[in-house]
Each structure stands twice: as C-alpha cells, then as structure tokens.
C-alpha cells in the first residue's frame, strides 16, 4: 500500500492543523481506552530481596526522573512498564512510512554504490563511527570482552534466574558460541593481572545484576539476544541489530513490546540513540512500535527508560539517513583512493 506509506511519511514531516486535530482526537481515544490486554500485567516473581510488585494500573503515578544509582527490582519493573495508560494504539501506516523514508534515503545516498551480493551492513557501531559494519576489523579489548561476558551473564540470569561463578559461567557461555572464538582466545591469552582485573570487574557487575535485576515472569515472554535484520534497497543495505532483551507478545493493535539494552561501561550519549535505533528496527520488523526502550547499566544498576514516540522514530530515521550519507562519502573516498 504505497499510498498509505507515503501519506504517513508526509504527515511525519509536516502536519496541517486539521491533521493535528485528528491526531489529538486519536490520542484522546487512546488515553480513555480501557487497558485490558497488557501482556506485562502478569504475575511478577520475586527473587531474593526483590519485593513482589503490585500490578500497575492505568492510574500509575508519573515516573520519577531517571535515577543514576542502583534501582531496585521493583523500580526496574516500573521503568520497563512505564505508564500503562500511555501505551498507544498502533498506527498501522507508521512502519510503512518510515520504511519508505529510509528507502528514499538509501537510494539518494549509498544506493548506487551498493552491491547486493555484498550488502552494506549498518549496525549501532556503524552509526556511531560512520562506517559500515562489514570490512572492518573489530579491535579486541578488555572493555569489549567485559561487555560480551556481561551480555552472556545477563542472558543467563534472565533465562535461569541465577549466576553462580561469573567468570566461569561467562566464559562457558562465550565458548559455546563459535562466533566468539576470537574473543575467547583473547581472554584466555590475557596476562594474570589483566585477567584477574577483568574477572573482578565482571564479578562485581554480576553481583549487582543478581541483586537488582528482577526475575521476569515467564508470561512476559522474555527473549534475549533478539537479532533483527531489515533489508533495504532490495537487500543492498541491511539495518542490523541484536537487542539484549525483548519482553511482551507481538502487538495485536496496541503497543506491547519493550526493549532493553544492557551496557557494562559508563553512560554515554550514544546509548540513548542506540536504544532508539533498536526501537526503529523493531517497528520496521513487526509493523508495531514498541512501547518502551530502556538501557540498563550493570556497573551501577541504573536504568534509563523512555516511551517510544513517533518523533523518536523519526529522529532515528534521520540519524540513519545522515549516517548513510557519511558512510557513502567515506566509501567513495576509499574507492577513489584505491583507484
């Protein structure tokens, strides 16, 4: 339905007073609509010191400002849920409009340079560094190893509810994945002091995780390391991402999924942009925007969460298109240099 997609795209760029009025009417309907299909309102299973949490209602109090220190398990759940009354009805044309916009952006910038047999892969790293994810060697480092170990341990905690020996469990988790062979070899090759410091760091963060991350009810359908690949321009460009945690069933008409990105390092401005990029990927994949995205910091136990809005997704589209242009320029320079 290209006409509908086009209309969505136009509306997201310029709105006439009449359109604003229609949107306000729609929003009013959303706020007064009964919240009866909230997948996340299932029983929360407390673990350890995490107190059982009552089910949020549409009259939940406004969320507090994002805390910078450790957040309790119930606080994490509250941040993941957000304000239930604000979960929007899905705009069925939004995803199509965003996709059309991206397709145009690809065609205008990098499209002509692309080879469909060797697609240009755009992931969060590529967006941050303005270069494609393919054709570049990722420098192995201790922060990278720490991040990979924490990702595996977070996955283990969500799946099994426990972490026994952080470094051993983490290395076992990495070793079973053939794609992590280089990283495993890197960690195994570290000197005694470096490896001890890494193990200590990982252990501390794992303790914080166990203490503060809540056990999610199985009814939330938590799934980890959710891989999304969005082909554009007939597969010449791939938007790619691996989301650490997705909760909630696919949408039946109202926003129903939440995304969590786990970070083992310090807060950085691009983390919010990464989470928003994942919201865009999920919207393009499922046809429905998630209701919430969050970044969880395992070093501090802090969480940053926000509602997903149309404006946020538009911002992500613009970021991706801008990155397309910069990547295209750098590729062109490389090709000219090689010639």
């Amino acid at each position, binding site marked *: *339905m290209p006409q509908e997609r086009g209309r969505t795209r136009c509306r997201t760029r310029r709105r006439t007073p009449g359109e604003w009025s229609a949107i306000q009417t729609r929003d009013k309907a959303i706020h007064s609509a009964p919240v009866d299909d909230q997948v996340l309102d299932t029983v929360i299973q407390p673990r350890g010191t995490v107190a059982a949490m009552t089910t949020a209602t549409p009259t939940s109090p406004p969320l507090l400002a994002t805390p910078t220190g450790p957040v309790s398990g119930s606080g994490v759940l509250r941040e993941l849920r957000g304000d239930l009354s604000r979960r929007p009805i899905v705009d069925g044309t939004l*995803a199509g409009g965003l996709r059309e916009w991206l397709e145009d952006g690809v065609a205008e910038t990098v499209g002509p340079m692309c080879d469909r047999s060797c697609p240009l892969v755009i992931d969060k790293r590529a967006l941050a560094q303005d270069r494609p994810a393919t054709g570049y060697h990722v420098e192995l480092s201790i922060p990278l190893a720490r991040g990979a170990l924490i990702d595996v341990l977070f*996955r283990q905690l969500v*799946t099994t509810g426990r972490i026994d020996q952080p470094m051993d469990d983490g290395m*076992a988790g990495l070793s*079973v994945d053939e794609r992590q062979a280089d990283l495993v070899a890197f960690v195994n090759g570290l000197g005694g002091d470096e490896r001890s410091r890494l193990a200590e760091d990982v252990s501390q963060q794992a303790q914080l995780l166990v203490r503060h991350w809540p056990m999610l009810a199985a009814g939330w359908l*938590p799934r980890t390391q959710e891989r999304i690949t969005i082909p554009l321009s007939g597969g010449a460009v791939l938007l790619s991402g691996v989301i650490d945690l997705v909760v909630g069933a696919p949408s039946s*008409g109202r926003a129903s999924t939440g995304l969590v990105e786990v970070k083992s390092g310090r807060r950085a401005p691009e983390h919010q942009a990464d989470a928003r990029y994942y919201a865009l990927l999920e919207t393009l994949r499922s046809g429905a925007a998630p209701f919430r995205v969050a970044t969880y910091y395992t070093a501090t136990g802090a969480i940053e969460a926000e509602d997903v809005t149309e404006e946020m997704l538009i911002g992500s589209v613009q970021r991706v298109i801008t990155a397309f242009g910069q990547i295209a320029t750098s590729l062109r320079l490389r090709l000219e240099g090689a010639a």
Partner: protein
Amino acid sequence: VTGTSLSPTRLPKAGALTEALVAPATQRASDTPESLRTAVAAALSAAGTTLPRGAHVRVDGYFLRTALTRPERLSHPDPFTWSPRTARRLLGLAAVRACVGGNERTPANAVDRVVSSAVEDGQRENQRAGSLAGWLNSLAIGARAVVRAEAITWATHLLSALDWRGMAEGPIVGSDQWWDGPAGCRVSLRGRSEVRTATLAGDPSCDSRTSRTPAAMFTMLGGRPSEVATVELGLVALASFMARPNEPTPARVVGWWPQCGRAMVLSVDTATLRSTTDAVLGAIDTYRQRAA
C-alpha cells in the same frame, strides 16, 4: 517470483499468517499426481546415477541454497557440530509442542523442561555418540544457559507467529518430510517445516478424490529471504508430495522470517512441483561438477 508476500503492516501478524496458511486451496491440483510423482522419482534416480561412485546427496534447504547461490562452498561443507544455533530448533520444537498441547504455558518453562529432560537422558550411558542429549549433558552451566536462551527465543518466535486456535484440526508441530526414493536411489529429499495443518474446505473442484483437504506447511527460516527463497519453499512442498503418496497434494507453503518480519506464501501446483524439481536437478548437477 512465484511466491507472494503478506502485507508487512497488517496486525496482528499471527492472525494474518494463520489465515494465509489455512485458507482453502484455490489452485487445481495435478490431475495425474501419480504420473508426476513417477516422473520426479525417475528424474531424481537418474540424477543419482551421475554422482561419483559411493556418493549420496541429501537435498535439503541448505544444500539447495548453497548449490544455487554459493556453489563453491559445496566442495568444503562445514561439518555438523552441536551449538546453540544448531540445537535451538530441536529444543524449540519440543517446547512449542508442549505449549500447543497444553502441557506448558510459556516457552521458557517448556524449554526448561525439555532441556532438563535431555540432560537426564544424557546422563544415561546408553546415549549414542554425538547425541544432543549427550552434548547438553557435557556443557557447563553457563554454556547450557546460552543453549536454553537460544531455544526460548526460537520457540517464542514460532509460538507467536501463528494463531493456534485458528487451525481447525490439531496442527503437527515439527513436520519434516523425508523422501528416500526407490531402492538404490542415491538422492533423497528433506523438506523442513515447523508446522503442518489442514486447510479449510473450499472449492470442491480442488482434488475432490479424497475427503481430506490438502495440507499446508509453515516453515520458519533465519535471516531474510534469499533470492532462491521460492525454491526453498518449493522443496518443502516437493518432499511432502513425494513422501505422502496417499494424501492430496499440499496446498501451499508459508515461509516466515521473524528476523526481518517478512512472509512469503507459495501456492503449490503442478508447475511449482516441476520447477522445484528442475531446481533440485540443477543443484545436483552443480554438486556433481564440483565433486568431479
């Protein structure tokens, strides 16, 4: 492209996919399926005779895709090893079966039960070498957690891909089809499908020789549709057609790529089966040339 895609914006997707899967068959099945079956068997058997001495080809989706898109890889196939990615489908199917059957409520609980049971099996000494149970039993806690997590994600994708109540008869979860050919045939077919179900009754002119409605298959694939996705779906239909001579020709195959949210519906008719057979023969010939 024979296949058609569903609207990417229609919600809920599970409802749309299920409707597409079980819709009444619209195409007329082959008037002479027996003669077509005989012709396909003869062609595949003949292709087998061209293979190097002692060689046997199992044509599955991976083989077909590799032969048609990256034939150079046929010479150096990756040896099979268990990993979270290779184990997730087996574990995930068992978990989905438990959920659909009402024995478990969520993928996480079901996978936990399936893996625990497999580990117990693996602790018995009579496990054959290289079994999934034995492998799971050999893993450390952290590694087993990754396997479980992969299986949960996979099972959640399959469970939430379909509206299970929208299928009239009990769907078969995990319905791979094998065709080994007549005695001495050195080519076998394997069609991988996650779900097999009956289509709704519709046009009575569609294969009215039996009281059963044609089957439809649902297959969930990784990544994004390749340029030979139609042929891959066609192989699922061809294997079923060959392996189940006493059943009506399948109505369709629905392919679902959850990683990118794309779906493809392949209606099955004589032309589809013939073109898929041609593609299989082409792949076998490519393999023969590489092996020579």
